[in-house]
């Protein structure tokens, strides 16, 4: 045997020994929950996060609280808002545009300072007053959508504040469930250097910031002094990793590198199940519709909108995504309390064709803007191809205008004034609160680009109902009005309704105690991880 052969053989043996001696087991330490997110980057941690609701889910709600939080404790009922840093709130009996918030006492920031009314005042100035020294443009941008009706704040005493609104809105407290409070104490100690703050953020939330490697990982430890004792985290440590590629997330879970992944690809689910992983799903307030143009084109005609809804075979779409969706017959899922009894647009191709004929639009040419991927867009391309085929079977001629997510966001925000030739746009929607879910898409006050009524829908009935809802402070009566509005939008075939996502997640069998609430946000605190 030559010297070279002997050397090569030795190297190979040493390599094999090294590989067998040091198997990879990074997330197998006891009690460490390691999450692979779909986001391409770590969300910002200086208050309201970016990266959509995933940013809220894994950073925002873990580090911080809002005056009003979300109740994420049940998987069986839709989640609603609950007291957060405010233990109680009510409308001022003398002024329907003034809300009184009683602040929770005894709450401490992660840095040890006490939470007071001054902190709340300071936080609102940070995101709304351009002259305030703590004003931060990025946070202004990320919070502003929830401050549309905000008209100022006043301190009543150390534990009470009043927030004024521009117009009467009985649903205003929902907006306050998206505005996260950061520590004035920490920010001022760091001389309002927000880059320094990002490396040492301080909130009142159930997790404390531990460390961060930019773009790669963020680590948290439990806040053992959290004011809500039922939500003190049960893990030793929480690690979040941005992992935008679905196949990479799947491999990372199967190899033990992480133990919790968001949104596995449906075709990977059999492999994950075979590998012993838990697949969890639940309905949540999400829809995957086509939002329509009401200023010009075929969809200004109710019959065309109804035809498009009858043309969709939703069961086929559900099959395409591996069963991880439910058919969508109206804007919100049937689990929400204001679902009511909307029109059920059961698949009927002949009826769709007949309606198009009645409308004088056969064949009916439409242009639909779609994205290749994006937050909440599910399996965007195959789903859109299937819908196109179904619409064309019923007499439509569909031109799919394909763009990337960033470009579709521009279409979405600019609305029909900038994109008049787009007849419809496929954009998934977060329906967490009634205002976002069913009021903004129909109220003329929210016409794009000033709001999210993308296609400029406007009818006197819808505007009147919205006014009644905003002025009704009795919760039972308001729920009846919301139900009426939801049913009305269904009659109007406001969108082409397709499916509601079921939000699959895959968990290692060692992960215990996760309750998937019916919400975009999730509570990670009850999770424990077996060694």
């Amino acid at each position, binding site marked *: 045997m030559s010297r070279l052969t002997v050397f090569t053989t030795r190297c190979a043996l040493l390599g094999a020994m*090294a*590989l*067998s001696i*040091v*198997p*990879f087991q*990074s997330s197998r330490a006891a009690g460490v929950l390691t999450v692979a997110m779909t986001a*391409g*980057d*770590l969300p*910002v941690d200086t208050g309201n996060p*970016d990266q*959509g609701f995933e940013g809220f889910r894994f950073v925002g709600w873990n580090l911080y609280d809002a005056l009003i939080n979300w109740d994420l404790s049940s998987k069986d009922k839709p989640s609603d808002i609950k007291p957060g840093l405010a233990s109680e709130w009510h409308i001022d009996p003398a002024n329907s545009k003034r809300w009184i918030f009683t602040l929770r006492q005894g709450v401490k920031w992660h840095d040890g300072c006490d939470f007071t009314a001054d902190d709340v005042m300071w936080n609102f100035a940070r995101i709304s007053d*351009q002259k305030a020294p703590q004003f931060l*443009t*990025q946070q*202004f*941008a*990320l919070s*502003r*959508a929830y401050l*549309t009706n905000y008209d100022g704040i006043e301190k009543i005493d150390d534990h009470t504040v009043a927030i004024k609104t521009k117009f009467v809105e009985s649903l205003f407290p929902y907006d306050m469930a998206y505005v996260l409070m950061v520590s004035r104490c920490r920010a001022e100690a760091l001389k309002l250097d*927000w*880059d320094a703050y*990002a490396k040492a953020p301080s909130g009142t939330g159930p997790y404390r910031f531990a460390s961060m*490697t*930019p*773009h*790669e*990982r963020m680590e948290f430890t439990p806040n053992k002094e959290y004011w809500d004792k039922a939500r003190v985290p049960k893990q030793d440590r929480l690690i979040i*990793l*941005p*992992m*935008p*590629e679905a*196949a*990479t997330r799947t*491999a*990372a879970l*199967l*190899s*033990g*590198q992480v133990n919790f992944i968001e949104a596995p690809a449906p075709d990977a689910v059999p492999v994950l199940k075979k*590998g012993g992983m838990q697949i969890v799903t639940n309905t949540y307030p999400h829809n995957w519709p086509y939002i329509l143009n009401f200023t010009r084109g075929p969809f200004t005609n109710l019959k065309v909108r109804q035809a498009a809804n009858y043309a969709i075979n939703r069961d086929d779409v559900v099959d395409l995504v591996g069963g991880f969706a439910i058919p969508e017959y109206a804007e919100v899922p049937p689990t929400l309390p204001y679902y009511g009894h909307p029109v059920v647009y059961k698949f009927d191709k002949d009826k769709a064709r007949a309606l198009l004929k009645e409308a004088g639009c056969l064949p009916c040419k439409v242009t639909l803007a779609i994205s290749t991927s994006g937050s909440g867009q599910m399996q965007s391309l195959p789903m859109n191809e299937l819908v196109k085929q179904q619409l064309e079977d019923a007499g439509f001629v569909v031109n799919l205008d394909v*763009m*990337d*997510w*960033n*470009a579709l*966001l*521009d279409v*979405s*925000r600019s609305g029909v004034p900038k994109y008049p030739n787009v007849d419809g746009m496929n954009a998934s929607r*977060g329906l967490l609160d009634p205002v*976002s879910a069913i009021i*903004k898409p129909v109220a003329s006050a929210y016409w794009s*680009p*000033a*709001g*999210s009524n993308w296609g400029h829908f406007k009818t006197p009935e819808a505007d009147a109902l919205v006014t009644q809802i905003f002025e009704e402070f009795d919760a039972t009566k308001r729920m009846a009005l919301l139900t009426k509005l939801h049913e009305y939008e269904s009659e109007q075939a406001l969108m082409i309704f397709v499916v509601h996502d079921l939000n699959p997640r895959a968990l290692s069998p060692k992960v215990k105690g996760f309750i998937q609430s019916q919400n975009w946000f999730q509570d990670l605190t009850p999770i424990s991880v077996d060694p």
Partner: protein
Amino acid sequence: MFGYIIRRILFALPIAIGVSIVCFSLVYLAPGDPLQTVLPPDATAETIAIVKHEYGFDRPVPVQYAIWLWHVVQGDFGRSIASRRPVTLEVFGSLANTAMLALFAVPVAFATGFAMGAIAGCYPGRILDRIVTGAAVIGVSLPNYWLGLVLVIVFAVEYMVLPASGMGKSGSAAFSLWRWSDAQFLVLPVVTLTMIPIGIIARTTRAAVAEVRSQEFVTTLRAMGLGEGAVIRHVLKNASPQVLAVMGLQFGYLMGGSILVETVFTWPGSGFLLNKAIINRDIPVLQGTILALSLVFVATNLVVDLLQATLDPRIRRA
């Protein structure tokens, strides 16, 4: 030689400026908006206008470019729109991570590709040539993101001997080449990354060697009685300027990072950063990364030119 170097450096400057202008223009020609990432879905027109003003995006594009260039000349690449971190930190951090991959990928790819090409070129038409050429074609043709996933399935999922993604157990900040628990994260991305350069270099070397072997001076060398080993040495030396040019391009490719490979392995390098910057239209990061990568390419070409001139003085005179 000194004058030649100065001339080449001066040629590089307009190339770098040209690249930055093209990149800046392309970003604005593409649909989308750099502020979409910091704005929520329900952002109003008023909010967008205020934020645009704060970030300076309400100014004319040429003015924005001029301001950016002026700051760059002073060493200030600006801040990322998405992360608010200085672009210099973002770009150099990611380039360092990509360089870590290149540090291993370059010698492996160059040595293997050159050896394969030289063997195939020396024995054209023989079984060895066919095997090597076939392997090179496979190397070039395999989509590297697919190969990456296959390697992950085999080594990370099935046998669990190597990690699937990332850069060490605690991320790049604590990465150490001297700890196997970290270094093992390099194996799969490096193997994936080397496949295409190996194929390209092997094919180029084979063609160059075969071409030089057919030249008259080789016949003369043999007629003078030189042994086959000495002839091959002369052939390889004469083929090397052509191979060097291709190696230079491949070095630039490896230093630039592969968007696909780095995304599949979630490797926080320049390709991964570029991908995020494109998706987010994060113009300062996009500009900074492309400028840095173009400078890497320009510097690589300069070094290759100098090496070529050293190997073949006729190039210097031309």
